[in-house]
């Protein structure tokens, strides 16, 4: 399949978007002092591609019937999603400052009834894929051409319900279902391998009737191409296994053995944000230069 792909300038924009998501995520978590840093960072690039290029949505009309849906099944990584939604204008960026405070519309695990742009409430791992299957079935019944995306953790794949849903999706040929697994090889208490290994996720999904794409989960172009190909799929549901690093792009967290749910102080946050801002400056320069060259 010859899918169109991102231009250089579009790719740079996406990279800037991903860095902005990371900055806001760090700031949000630092404001409450503690949070799920690792999993928010590892999924940030995929979230950037979803909201920066792949998904059909309208921030002014978050309930638009024809929108694509995202089931953010690893709901504890809410901060990365909130950052993307705020940047895209689903709600005021001011809201980010009050994440997890009493009365906030942004709870640590995503909740559809509180946040514009969040379609499905999650937080209990393992449930999201079934809901995504239901959404995709409804689209098919109604003849809608929307896609349903489901973001899951690799640790989450230890839940049996994931495989009940996968079996069903494969058997029902839900070709507009696109699953993304944040395969960061770590869960809450350490490495999956040492706890209860999920083994070869690609092979497992393949057995259940999925088309499998294995990509570098921090390479935006690769993620984008995989999603474009998945969208063309008429015979099978798709899964994109994102090879990721827990804590990626957050200077203090990336080094830590355990960065799952950690305290973050202002100093750490400032240092990490600074690095990301420098990266954004560099990307802007690169775009300018590219622009000059193109002329």
């Amino acid at each position: 399949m010859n899918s169109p792909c991102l231009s250089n300038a579009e790719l740079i924009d996406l990279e800037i978007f991903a860095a902005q998501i990371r900055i806001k995520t760090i700031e949000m978590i630092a404001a409450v002092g503690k949070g799920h840093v690792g999993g928010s960072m590892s999924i940030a690039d995929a979230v950037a591609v979803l909201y920066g290029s792949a998904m059909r949505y309208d921030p002014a009309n978050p309930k638009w019937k024809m929108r694509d849906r995202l089931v953010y099944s690893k709901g504890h990584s809410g901060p990365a999603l909130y950052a993307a939604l705020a940047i895209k204008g689903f709600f005021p960026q001011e809201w980010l400052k009050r994440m997890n405070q009493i009365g906030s519309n942004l709870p640590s695990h995503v909740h559809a009834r509180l946040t514009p742009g969040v379609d499905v409430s999650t937080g209990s791992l393992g449930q999201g894929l079934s809901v995504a299957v239901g959404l995709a079935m409804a689209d098919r019944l109604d003849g809608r051409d929307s896609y349903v995306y489901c973001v899951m953790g690799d640790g989450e794949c230890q839940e049996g319900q994931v495989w009940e849903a996968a079996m069903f999706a494969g058997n029902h040929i839900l070709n507009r279902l696109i699953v993304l697994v944040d395969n960061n090889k770590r869960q809450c208490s350490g490495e999956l391998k040492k706890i209860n290994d999920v083994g070869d996720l690609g092979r497992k999904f393949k057995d259940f009737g999925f088309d499998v794409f294995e990509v570098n989960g921090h390479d935006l172009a690769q993620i984008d191409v995989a999603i474009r190909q998945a969208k063309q799929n008429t015979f099978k549901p798709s899964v994109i296994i994102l090879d990721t690093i827990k804590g990626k792009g957050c200077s203090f967290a990336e080094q830590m053995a355990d960065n799952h749910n950690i305290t973050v102080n202002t100093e750490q946050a400032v240092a990490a944000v600074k690095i990301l801002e420098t990266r954004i400056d560099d990307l802007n320069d690169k775009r300018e230069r590219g622009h000059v060259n193109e002329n």
Partner: protein
Amino acid sequence: MKINLAQPGTPAEESMADTLGRCLGAFMEEDLRVIAMDADVGLGKMLPPEIINKYPNRYINVGIAEANMLGIACGLSFKDKVPFTYTFCCFAARKVLDQAFLSGAFGGAHVLMIGAMPGVTATINGGSHMAFEDAAVMRAVPEMTVVEPSDMLQGEQVLRMAKDLPGMFYIRWERKGDIRFYENGSTFEIGKAVKLCGGSDVTIIAQGHLCLKEAQAAVALLALEGIRAGLIDMFTLKPIDREAIVDAVRETGCLVTAENQNVLGGLGSAVSEVMAENEAAPLEMVGIRDAFGEVGDLESLKKRYKLTAQDIAAAAKRAISRKQKRRPGA
């Protein structure tokens, strides 16, 4: 049962999370049947590291798979092991109810199910993680014992009794519990409520660390107004201490229940059931009024759901005035 009360507000030497890790570690050492099971929520960091090193096969982290954990625990128990399962309250009841019922209680297993972070103590984890229904759900399972110890000393004894008694246990565990209600030398019995003080005007019956702490403060607030409130620690929700409830009705003629959970099916319900079948009196229920949890800090959440000492004291006054309307002069 023998009770030595601590001075109100006495700080505990350790948090109840530490108590749990220490006790399970000690049990693993002294009783080779004991298995500590975790569904990726950090029990491994609570157990003493030397115990995990010494008995690596008896700390089992099944990963994110609570129902599987329960099933495995039941199987272990059928071969004379004594498994303690550990996860958050929100998963400890919701995700495993069928397994706890069928493989567990119905099948005659002996599993000690520990649910951590009850009710609003889930704080910034938010509504998805706020279990207001867990104890009520477990209470409806035949032969399930349901307890929520209120401090470290009681907690330690409850764990030990549960280990040595038959059947299924649901143990609600407030990890951040940090004050003592009881001094060393106190001994407890499952199914026997503890009377912290007697009263003449109203009796407050509380379940769990958070509510007992607030209730104790409410007793002090009421005393300032000349109201004598009795206080009962109902750490066993099931089997509930019927005698203690009937005695309280006779002693004070009205009751308040205080619970960190939905009042539907919880302590308020259990106390009402006993009164309806024995001797009834006005009852005011402090607890979550059939609502979902929300994200926030503990102090704000206690206010939001009306679980504070002031709320309990106000409920006590409502109960007293209802009693007086029923029996003028009483």
